[in-house]
């Protein structure tokens, strides 16, 4: 659905996006993670045909984003929620949506039905005649999402959709994104929020001007290191450490009475390790697995 190859954007001497390559399949939620200034918004703007690319290729459903003849077709099939919601504050929620419905060339029936549908789903129907300027941040964000969906686009670009929202509003927005995922919408999500990316995204790209890594959340977590097994003992002594050294473990860290051991296959290796400790006279208090998080992966890649 979205195919990007070696996409680059330069503003004068500044390279905002540097040779990025990735693809997003239909119905997939792709999360773009990266610090401020990493080029996330610039990438979305290039894919939305709002700004031109400097080099590389980008296609949305086989339409070329750099072809002026294709740009109107692309803009018709995508919905964009920018980082600043940009609503018309003097106009009611209904009129905001109706205006965009007209520009997206929806007929009267389609506009009426979709406005009602999305405002009801997002809990804004009762406020449809209230000026958007009087809405809370969460309500404005929801209205901006409804605006992006008014023409039933196949692809939705969301640029930091839960930034500055309270936890409850963030959850509503996240749940709604998951609902859209069920409807097989392709979603491109720019976010700082690792937890959000982990919960929502099928695939994640970590961007810091260059694309540092792409993969599923699990793949990215696993790319940092394998699993670690943490064993808390009543007391660690030399006999136990000697017994473990005989197992030729890859990495053993001894901290007070806690042992942290790198393992490749925890299911096979952990029983052997525990058995060795017990035979050496050790008393195991607990055994736990230490897995790298997406945050670990992110921090390692962007630093």
């Amino acid at each position, binding site marked *: 659905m979205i195919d990007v190859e070696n996409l680059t954007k330069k503003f004068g001497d500044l390279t905002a996006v540097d040779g990025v390559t990735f693809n997003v399949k239909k119905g997939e939620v792709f999360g773009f993670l990266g610090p401020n200034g990493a080029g996330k918004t610039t990438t979305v703007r290039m894919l939305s045909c709002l700004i031109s690319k400097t080099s590389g290729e980008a296609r949305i459903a086989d339409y070329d984003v750099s072809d002026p003849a294709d740009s*109107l077709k692309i803009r018709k099939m995508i919905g964009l929620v*920018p980082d600043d919601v*940009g609503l*018309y504050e003097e*106009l009611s929620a209904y009129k905001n949506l109706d205006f965009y419905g007209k*520009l*997206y060339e929806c007929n009267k029936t389609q506009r009426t039905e979709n406005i009602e549908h999305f405002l009801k789903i997002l809990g804004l129907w009762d406020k449809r005649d209230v*000026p958007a300027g009087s809405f809370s941040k969460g309500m404005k964000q929801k209205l*901006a999402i409804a605006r992006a969906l008014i023409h039933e686009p196949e692809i939705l670009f969301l640029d930091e959709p839960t930034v500055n929202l309270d936890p409850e509003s963030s959850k509503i927005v996240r749940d709604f994104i998951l609902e859209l995922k069920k409807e097989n919408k392709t979603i491109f999500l720019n976010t700082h929020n690792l937890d959000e990316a982990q919960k929502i995204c099928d695939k994640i790209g970590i961007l810091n001007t260059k694309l540092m890594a792409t993969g599923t959340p699990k793949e990215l977590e696993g790319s940092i290191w394998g699993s670690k097994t943490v064993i808390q003992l009543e007391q660690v002594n030399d006999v136990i450490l000697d017994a473990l050294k005989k197992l030729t473990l890859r990495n053993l860290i001894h901290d007070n009475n806690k042992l942290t051991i790198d393992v490749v296959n925890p299911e096979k290796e952990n029983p052997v390790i525990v058995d060795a400790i017990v035979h050496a006279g050790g008393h195991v208090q607990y055994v736990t697995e230490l897995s790298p998080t997406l945050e670990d992966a992110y921090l390692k890649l962007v630093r």
Partner: protein
Amino acid sequence: MKLWKSWVIASKDFSIFRKKKSIIYSVILLPLLISIGLPFVISASGQGGGLPADVLQSLLNAFSFFFVILAASLTTVIASYSLIGEKVEKSIEPLLATPTTDSEILLGKSFAAFLPPIASIYLGLAIFMVLIDKLTYNTLGYFYYPNWNIAIIILLVAPLSAILSVELGVILSSRVNDVRSAQQLGQLVIIPFFGIYILGEIGYLSLGINSMLIIAAILLVVDIVFFYISTITFRREDILTKWK
């Protein structure tokens, strides 16, 4: 180009203008005050009877030109709201993301900035002409308005000066961050018009038909130059990346 899309954008702006009291007051009250105030000056000078006919005609021509100043000035006010307002409220990006061309958006914004002041000025001019005719008929022996002079103002000079203000508004939008600054800078456009008005008032320049045609021709050339500059300024990518 789909003209209906430009009209949708302009209609949306009209809905917003209706909610802004400052715009309503500027667009409706100002032309109304001028259309009543200028005849009041004639009335105060003895219903035109206190002035010789040729002086009266020259004064009326200068007064007519006042509506050109008004057209330029009011359009600047509206253009600032229409363009900078979109920028300030950050609504420009979702608008640009719609399947609408730069030309359709620019034309829509131009309609929004141009039509309300022009409609209001035409209404003001109608009131002005009726009142002036009523006040000066006895002195002149005929109805001074309508005449070719005011026709050129209505059909050419006022619309061309309003278009100039719209174009200036577009250019200023790329450089200015708030509505008030844009309005203040935009008002510079009235300086040459005001200069012409003063010259007409003090008798250095006849604001008759020939002068009006020359002014219209100059405005047309300036409008074409500013149109070119404003279309270069109003490009999707520049709006998002270069506009301050």
